[in-house]
């Protein structure tokens, strides 16, 4: 075994270490900087895969930081569900990084690219940490690291919109972390623990003595994670931040960062608060209705946009709502649907932002109405956009259908068919704003007038990978769904 026992923490440490060396490499050995980050991501991916195989054989694995056992020491937990999310995070960020290698030179000044690698590695490392950690205070620290690096990969572009958008994002996410830490204090007052597992047991008894503390903590957690994951009424920062950022950053933020916070909220609901608390207050119900509203309003706002990246950003608000629905239904099928959607939407939305980046790179167009006829000059790009839109709508043969299918099934299982209607209606709304772009791009009789630069092969390769995976998710969902069913069974 040897050092394999340290894999959970090594995944985080490798990324943070790369963050430190990449600007130095960029200054003194420029050719090595990008391969260093790439190899760190590959190493993290291999470690996560090895952990998943090990966990499936021997069961959930706990790692004690520095040998200090909980409740005092920090604990990392590796179970199939967390490792699944971790694999999604690392593999999608590896894929986006390959795309970024070509796109960054176009969007950023050359001297800051080394710093971009730093921020990117820190972001991936902190997300991996958020997924793996089993300690509330550690979660707080990693969330702040994630927030700062997520804001910084927007503001690194240094134009006016990016700076304003990242300031807004920073202020709202600081509000989120403030609320989160206050909630942590409330739970610590009531129980004296910060470890998820210990809290879960201690809260059952503490709930009799300090119900108000625990209610407040639950409310604060919903506000905190809702703000950070752009749950419907708290989404105001998202469109500006995700639309103005450089395209690889948009892909990263929309594809992964918001979902990590949704996953953290899931952990709070299922691993920290015991069932008695959730039965006493309708927390899931609140999340469920906000998600239902979000899935409608996100799409309605998206229809009104004229800027392609803004439209994609608003569409994320509608899509993150499905993941929250998966959490709110309190049913194992819904969890399968929600978590499948984390993977599908991460790939799809990242690919759509790549498409937007390619369009901006080769033609400079950002407005939707100027895209008429673009499908004939950028065929691969627009085919990728078509498949991505199909997955957003949930057309059979794409990954989007599978997650919506499971969500709708669980809505029927718990006897609330109204949510099937919500899912159907929001799918139709998605179709209303995605399909005209596709039709306009291929069928419009006018020729595309602007000058078109050829698309670099790396970018095309990345889009083709995205398309292939979306279709694989649509046709061969069995292995992932089996894994998720096993993981979800642990909670019911």
């Amino acid at each position, binding site marked *: 075994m040897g050092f394999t026992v340290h894999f959970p923490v090594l995944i985080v440490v490798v990324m943070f270490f790369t963050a430190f060396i990449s600007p130095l490499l960029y200054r003194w050995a420029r050719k090595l900087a990008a391969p260093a980050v790439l190899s760190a991501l590959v190493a993290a991916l291999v470690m996560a895969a090895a952990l998943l195989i090990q966990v499936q054989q021997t069961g959930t694995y706990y790692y004690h930081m520095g040998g200090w056992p909980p409740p005092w020491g920090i604990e990392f937990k590796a179970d199939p569900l967390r490792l699944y999310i971790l694999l999604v995070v690392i593999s999608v960020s590896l894929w986006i990084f390959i795309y970024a290698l070509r796109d960054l030179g176009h969007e950023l000044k050359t001297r800051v690219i080394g710093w971009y690698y730093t921020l990117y590695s820190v972001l991936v490392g902190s997300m991996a940490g958020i997924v793996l950690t089993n300690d509330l205070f550690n979660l707080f620290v990693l969330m702040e690291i994630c927030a700062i690096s997520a804001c910084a990969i927007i*503001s690194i572009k240094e134009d006016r919109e990016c700076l304003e958008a990242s300031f807004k994002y*920073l202020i709202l996410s600081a509000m989120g972390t*403030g609320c989160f830490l206050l909630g942590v204090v409330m739970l610590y007052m009531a129980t004296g623990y910060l470890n998820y597992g210990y809290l879960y047991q201690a809260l059952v008894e503490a709930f009799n003595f300090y119900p108000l503390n625990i209610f407040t903590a639950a409310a604060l957690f919903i506000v905190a994670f809702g703000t950070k994951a752009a749950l419907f009424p708290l989404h105001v920062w998202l469109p500006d931040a995700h639309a103005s950022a450089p395209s690889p950053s948009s892909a990263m933020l929309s594809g992964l960062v918001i979902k990590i916070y949704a996953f953290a909220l899931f952990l709070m609901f299922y691993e920290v608060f015991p069932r008695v608390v959730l039965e006493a207050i309708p927390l899931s119900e609140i999340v469920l209705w906000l998600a239902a509203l979000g899935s409608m309003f996100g799409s309605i706002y998206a229809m009104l946009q004229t800027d392609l990246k803004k439209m994609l950003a608003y569409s994320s608000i509608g899509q993150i709502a499905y993941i929250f629905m998966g959490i709110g239904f309190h049913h194992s099928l819904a969890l399968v649907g929600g978590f499948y959607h984390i993977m599908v939407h991460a790939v799809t939305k990242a690919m759509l932002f790549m498409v937007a980046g390619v369009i901006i790179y080769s033609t400079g167009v950002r407005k939707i109405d100027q895209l008429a006829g673009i499908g004939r000059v950028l065929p691969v790009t627009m085919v990728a956009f078509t498949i991505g839109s199909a997955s957003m709508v949930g057309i059979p043969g794409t990954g989007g259908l599978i997650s919506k299918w499971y969500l709708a099934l669980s809505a029927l299982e718990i006897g609330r068919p109204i949510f099937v209607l919500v899912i159907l209606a929001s799918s139709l709304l998605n179709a209303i704003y995605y399909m005209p772009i596709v039709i306009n791009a291929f069928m419009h009789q006018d020729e595309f007038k602007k000058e078109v630069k050829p698309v670099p092969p790396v970018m095309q390769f990345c889009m083709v990978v995205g398309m292939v995976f979306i279709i694989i998710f649509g046709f061969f969902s069995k292995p992932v769904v089996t894994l998720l069913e096993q993981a979800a069974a642990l909670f019911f």
Partner: protein
Amino acid sequence: METLQGIIDNYYYMVAIILFVIGMYTMLTHSNMIKKVIAMNIMDASVFLMFVAVGYAHGSQAPIIRDNAEILYANPLPGALILTGIVVAVSVTAYALSLIVKIYRYYDTCDYDEICDIRSQE
């Protein structure tokens, strides 16, 4: 009466909550960005105050173990955690201020409403 006595006994929690609300309100409503950052710090400090207060018991001493074990010690864990929290808050503040400097160079103002006016005139 019991409630009042409870509030008096635990006045430090009340102070923390009042500061938290002041900070959050100012952060979300004021248009001046510097004030937003100051309010963010007030909010963070209030949470830290509350966390440290949780670790204190009436009449307890600093947790340094001496010969006689009969002394009541304060819980050292919240203090240790809050040190980390302060570091995090400082780095967020530094980053926010650097953003304000950059924004000021573009607009010659750090007032959010004025920036919106300038942008709408363009």
